[in-house]
């Protein structure tokens, strides 16, 4: 009888501990918010290579240098991208100034035009210079533009991940992003994504992004950068591999750098 009571008590305690543990786990929105912020580095300079691979295996390559700076509100970033190869896009520049309380400012500089041109910020689904990444994939959308639901936990590359399903909150977000659903595998230890599936507006699987080689670049709060990303478009068979060849965290670029003055420098 005494043993039975002890077993019952142990079971009860275990259940309470388990319940407590579950309730201590973050909810889907919290996870995606942490996922949003974990890559919000204060400042970063990178040299990267994007390899575009078509369904026949033929490759094209784009190299660029990127400067990134977090704005004072800790949410919005400024981004400057300059392409150095191939010849036909050499000198092309891209400048983005995020505004969490409104539309982002976006400009593209094409050397042939000799002037910067304002882009429509809502065109998040447009391809970023012909790659499989869209503008919306390059710059993460605001967390509350999607409704998030925890599905399960799963291991990817030996790492425990939360699996989160994200649905656009309205038709506008769906149309602008080109996605009806995203499923994100975010690491339980640092919240950085390791895999993302993107579903087109009709609900078919469109793209899968695999993210590896995570590196912590800022200690407190912890900020991470993934050095390798692969985006595969399942509907075209095309793939883009993005490799950061060199990263320099903490490069203090003044605000003046994130202006059309610098984007227009060839």
């Amino acid at each position, binding site marked *: 009888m005494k043993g039975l009571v002890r077993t019952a008590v142990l079971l009860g305690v275990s259940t309470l501990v388990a319940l407590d543990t579950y309730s201590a786990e973050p909810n889907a929105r919290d996870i995606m918010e942490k996922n949003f912020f974990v890559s919000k580095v204060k400042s970063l300079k990178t040299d990267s290579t994007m390899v575009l691979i078509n369904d026949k295996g033929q*490759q094209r390559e784009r190299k660029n240098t990127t400067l990134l700076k977090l704005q004072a509100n800790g949410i919005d970033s400024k981004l400057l991208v300059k392409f150095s190869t191939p*010849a036909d896009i050499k000198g092309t520049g891209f400048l983005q100034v995020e505004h969490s309380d409104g539309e982002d400012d976006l400009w593209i500089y094409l050397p042939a035009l000799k002037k910067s041109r304002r882009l429509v910020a809502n065109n998040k689904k447009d391809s970023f210079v012909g790659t499989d990444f869209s503008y919306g994939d390059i710059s993460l959308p605001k967390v509350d533009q999607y409704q998030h639901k925890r599905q399960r936990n799963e291991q990817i590359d030996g790492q425990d991940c939360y699996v989160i399903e994200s649905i656009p909150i309205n038709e506008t977000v769906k149309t602008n992003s080109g996605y009806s659903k995203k499923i994100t595998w975010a690491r339980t230890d640092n919240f950085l994504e390791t895999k993302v599936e993107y579903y087109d507006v009709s609900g078919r699987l469109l793209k899968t992004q695999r993210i590896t080689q995570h590196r912590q670049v800022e200690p407190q709060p912890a900020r991470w950068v993934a050095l390798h990303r692969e985006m595969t478009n399942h509907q075209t068979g095309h793939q883009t591999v993005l490799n950061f060849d060199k990263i320099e965290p903490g490069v203090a670029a003044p605000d003046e750098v994130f202006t059309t003055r610098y984007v227009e420098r060839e």
Partner: protein
Amino acid sequence: MRLRAAISFAALMGVSGAGQADDSRVPESPAFEGVQAFLQTRRVSGALRADYFHAAKRPDQGSDLLGVTAQIKTLPELGERIDGKLEARITNPALNRDGASQSRLLEGFVTLHLAQADLRIGKQIVAWGRADGINPTDNLTPRDYTVLLPFEDDQRFGTTAIKLDTYLSPQHTLTVFISPFFKPAMISLPTAGRTLRETTPARTLANSELGLKLDKIGEGLDGSISYFHGFSLLPDLRLLGSNPVEPILESHYDRINVLGADFARNFGRFAVRGEAAYVDTRDTAGDDPGIKNPYLFWIIGIDRTFFEEMNVNVQFFQRRVRRYHAPEGIADLQARAVALLNALIDGQRDRISNGISFRVSNKWFNNTLEAEVFAVLNLTRRDRFIRPLLTYAFTDHWKGTVGAEVYGGAADTQFGSLKPRRGVFAELRYGF
């Protein structure tokens, strides 16, 4: 002859067979890669281009022209705060017509980067205006409208000038442009049955050009106001008299003062761009048919991207000519013909002329295939211009382009008068 040119072009396209096989996946020879790396570290790039044009842009060139062009650009870094640019083009636009080679320095300047300013000295292209393709405020540096290359921007070349950009804040820039060396646009004037003499402004300090612009970017709205005191890039013709055989015309360039403004703003998925310029000329009374009249030229348009890559841009433009006098009102036949030519060159055929432009472009296969149709319709006289363009990138280095220029309308209209230029063109380009 057309067949021969086509065969010759096909032979050149055969060269691209290697280009099509060429791919980043195919290993280049170490020497080739070495050259590429050397050029890249020296900030040197360029292109070799083979072009076919069915129609010439100058009456003396004939038709079915096969040309070759070499273009090279270098961006030397001359110090921590000084860099520069040299870009030159050598072209023979009519290899199969014993055409002469032409060379041109497109740009050659040094730039000194100061904390709050950039000072650029030398031959430079300065492009003003936020509208798409039609820019009333773009009066500083010329274009060569006779060049036999397929892209709009191939027409641009620089003027020797000093340009100072002062950054008043990250959002505001004040630009001062001074050029003591006026360089006019190159256009083909109908010389058949006429003697033409060109006079350009003397290179004196008094004939310097001045441009001022205050530009604002960011926070949802880009815009500028500008002023230009210089010379019209396009000529006016004046009847000087007649020799026993034919009339004698003088092509000249007059002072203009331009007040301009432009803006670009997004409304949801639409981008709205507008631009306006009031151009004051020396013919304030409007009674000299040899000088263009003062006019207001404005344009406004919207563009939107549909699906993933299809961009549609529609613009409405209007020219309002002050103190307009119709060329038809001139009694003297020769003087009337010259006035009509001036009206066609300056877009002053009517007191008020309205028009629309339309550009639709799309990209497929991760930007390897690009198509674009650009069209302009003058609503007042129904003359029109359409330019379809198709470009395919075989690899990162090799690109092929085919297109056409189609002009329509009555012979006494701006685009109708250019009907002899109608034709197809093609280009094969190797970029490095």
